[in-house]
């Protein structure tokens, strides 16, 4: 009778809920704060910022957009940005071109060797040749210092293929059968029937691949020598990690040291913002994209 008649939550329960909400608020704050700090610094007054350092949740007045003006004046940064866009656009296209048909074929019951091919693919998730042998394959194929090497690194993802395959297998067989009766071939079935019904999974995978390419730096660091082919992340590494001003050479104007601090923040914002703007739109589909239990079977 203690439990049945109550409408309001008990006092300990209410205390728990309040504490829970506060702790979650703090977690949220911690996740947001570092990037907010970077943004605030990027529009702060350069000379005060360079003198004080520390953590800023409010930009230091008077606001200055000199950092952003400077960023777009550096040729290197612009090159990096355009290169990154190139790698993302063509890399995603190539990845989908390889991953989607593979997932489609392996999801068809009519395809006899599906089980064997699946094992062939999934084994690569458990064991790999590792960094050096892979690097040597690229060397021997003459891919070093080519843009193609970067596109090829991300051209196929077994993990995404498995997720897509599971999503394709969930669609009713009747759809395919009626299309086949109407004379559609497999390419047509995939493009006109299966893909439009799997938009959510496709959107998530596209986003994950795009973000992965946008943020990648290591493969470019080992495969690319020419700075003219570098993605933005490598220039960022020079500025943020190696503390080198080399990326900021050949700027339109010789910049004061204080301005360079500002530029550091501005570049970070410019290189991160596109992704932070895109992800909220796909996030309701994330659950589909991270379904890992689906590997079974």
């Amino acid at each position, binding site marked *: 009778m203690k*439990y049945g008649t109550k409408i309001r939550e008990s006092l300990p*329960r209410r205390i*728990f*809920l309040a504490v829970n*909400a506060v702790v*979650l*608020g703090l977690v*949220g704050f911690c*996740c*947001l704060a*570092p*990037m907010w700090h*970077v943004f605030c610094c990027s529009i702060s007054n350069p000379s005060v910022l360079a003198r004080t*350092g*520390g*953590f800023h949740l409010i930009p230091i007045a008077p606001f200055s957009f000199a950092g952003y003006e400077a960023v777009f004046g550096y040729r290197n940064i612009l090159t990096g940005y355009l290169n990154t866009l190139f790698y993302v656009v063509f890399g995603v296209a190539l990845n989908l*071109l*390889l991953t989607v*048909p*593979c997932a489609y*074929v392996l999801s*068809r019951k*009519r*395809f*006899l*060797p599906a089980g064997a*091919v699946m094992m062939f*693919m999934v084994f690569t998730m*458990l*064991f*790999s*040749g590792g*960094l*050096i*042998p*892979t*690097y*040597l*394959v690229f060397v021997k194929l003459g891919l070093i210092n080519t843009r193609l090497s970067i596109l090829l690194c991300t*051209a196929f993802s077994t993990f995404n293929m498995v997720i897509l395959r599971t999503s394709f297998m969930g669609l009713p067989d009747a759809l395919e059968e009626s299309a086949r009766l109407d004379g559609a071939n*497999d390419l047509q079935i995939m493009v006109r029937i299966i893909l439009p019904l799997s938009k959510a999974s496709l959107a998530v995978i596209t986003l994950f691949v795009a973000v992965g390419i946008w*943020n990648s*730096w*290591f493969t470019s660091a080992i495969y690319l020598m020419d700075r003219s082919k570098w993605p933005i*992340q490598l220039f*960022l*590494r020079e500025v*943020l*990690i190696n503390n080198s001003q080399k990326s900021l050479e050949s700027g339109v104007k010789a910049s004061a040291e204080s301005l360079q601090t500002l530029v550091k923040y501005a570049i970070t914002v410019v*290189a*991160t913002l596109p*992704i*932070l703007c895109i992800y909220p739109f796909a*996030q309701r589909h*994330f659950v589909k994209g*991270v379904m*890992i*239990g689906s*590997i*079974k079977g």
Partner: protein
Amino acid sequence: MTSISPAKKRKHGGRLILNYRQNRLLYWMLLPSVVYVLIFNYLPMAGLAMAFQDYSLTRGIFGSKWVGLKNFQDFFSGIYFARTLTNTLILSLLDLLICFPAPIVLALMLNEVQHAGYKKLVQTVSYIPHFISMVVVAGLIKEFTNSTGVIASIVKVFGGTPRSYISLPQYFRSIFTISQVWQTIGFNSIVFLAALSGIDQELYDAAKIDGANHIQQTWHVTLPGIASTIIIMLILRCGAIMNVNFEKVLLLYSPSTYETADVISTYVYRVGIVKQKIGYSTAVGLFNSVVSLALVLTANKLSRTYTDSSMF
């Protein structure tokens, strides 16, 4: 069961040919990805033969001298073996103990929130770190932990001497692990939240009727409800024990912190790509891959034996 007769075998091969004739296009659509995986996944595996060679780039894999297990002996008897293995294991165990449970706790906490809008807000914000590039994250860590950074100024307030923590070996593991929690807690909670939403609501009603309070409900309904997801994630995590977030270590470490920061994969990178000692670094990498494979198979087997969940 009877053994397969040659005639039956031929029939099986015949079935494959028949299947190809009926579904030609399917086979052709699969071809590009199979070729890709052969070249970029299986060819490097064949290249692992270099681990047993005194490999020279000019002579190639067929012309280089075979040295048996010499590369492995060199690694196991050198000073780097103990150091890189210890560092790899410690960073991984910290990850397993702290970064692995954190998203589960977050998911359980989010699950208790009754205000849908607030829950959504916290979730969305907590995904942000996952989308920030490793280079930027490493840049932030360096900024916050240097001698004029946030950590240093907090220490100063409490009367300590501010230092450049990222360049001191004794702080590397803490910095690495804490930032790792920050990077992964939100995004990794998604899969647990999905599992939580899949729990049958009637189970809670039944538990309430039996007089279970909230803690008992969490213990007897919620946790068993997401146990299989936790186990599968744990298997995956165990398989990755040897693969510490190597790109992050590479960006954060420096010769002054090698002592606690240098892991097997960063060592492979330095010796193989930078110093071009191909055969030796392949051997070190192979050691890493073999241990990884053994770990994931063991974890899977244990889980299949003691629980109902397994990955394959």
